[in-house]
């Protein structure tokens, strides 16, 4: 069986996965929660802030980053490959998509998402009786 035939018989989903993988990298991401919202930090070295595309659509947060061109010369070591970054997260209903802040510093993209009012912890003041 030829390689082409083998590939043709692979399930479509797996083919899609393989295709997606060759087009994009998944950047490493840290996700943390604060009292007011969520913080996502993406490692996207080589991406200038003008080449970052952030969209929120249908509850999906999508980040695409375009990396600079590769160095010239013969590669002696190569641990990275040329390509763009892409990663998607689906957001919970509790995230207020109207308030998204993003910042790109030294190849790290930081996205801050706010929680909707009802999802924030509420501070309850405890009144004390005046000491007699």
């Amino acid at each position, binding site marked *: 069986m030829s390689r082409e035939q083998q590939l043709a018989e692979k399930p479509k989903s797996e083919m899609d996965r*393989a295709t*997606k*993988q*060759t*087009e*994009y*990298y*998944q*950047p*490493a*991401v*840290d*996700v*943390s*929660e*604060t*009292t007011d919202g*969520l*913080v996502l*930090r993406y*490692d*996207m*070295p*080589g*991406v*200038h802030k003008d080449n970052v595309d952030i969209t929120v659509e249908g509850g*999906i947060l999508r980040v695409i980053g375009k990396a*600079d061109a590769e*160095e*010239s*010369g*013969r*590669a*002696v*070591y*190569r*641990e*990275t*490959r040329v*390509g763009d*970054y892409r*990663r*998607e*997260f*689906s*957001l*919970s209903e*509790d995230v207020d998509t109207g308030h998204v802040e993003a910042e790109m*510093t*030294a*190849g*790290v993209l*930081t996205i801050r998402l706010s929680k909707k009012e009802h999802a924030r912890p509420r501070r309850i003041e405890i009144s004390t009786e005046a000491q007699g």
Partner: protein
Amino acid sequence: MLLDSWSPFFDVEKTLGEMDRLLGAMGQPLGLRSVPRGTFPAVNVYEQADAAVLTAEVPGVSAEDLHLAVLGDSVTLRGERKSEAGEGERYYRRERPMGTFERTLTLPAPIDPDSVTAEYRNGILRVRMEKAEEAKAKKIAVKS
């Protein structure tokens, strides 16, 4: 609260991707920008006619925390990546390596230590090193 929409089992996929690469199953580039775990930062070295260029992916590391040393044909990069997390942040997912790192690489040729220039931009450290005189390719004129 937050799910990865197209790969809920990121680590599993990463491992499978790594296996694909090792076995050469697809014969195509690995989708994840990954090197074996613990290899941070990812480094590329390019050889040019008179120089070697090293690029290291060190996002989020400030230039003061990077230390570079060259000796003969070896180069050592040391540094520390500090967490940016503020107080009261609770992690759901941690994929980005943190802490100190050190890597030593052998270059394709001995280099001239006085010629080394390094710049840090967009999270990538780029080091250009001229080859030592004796290692440079010499053009020899052919007399007729």
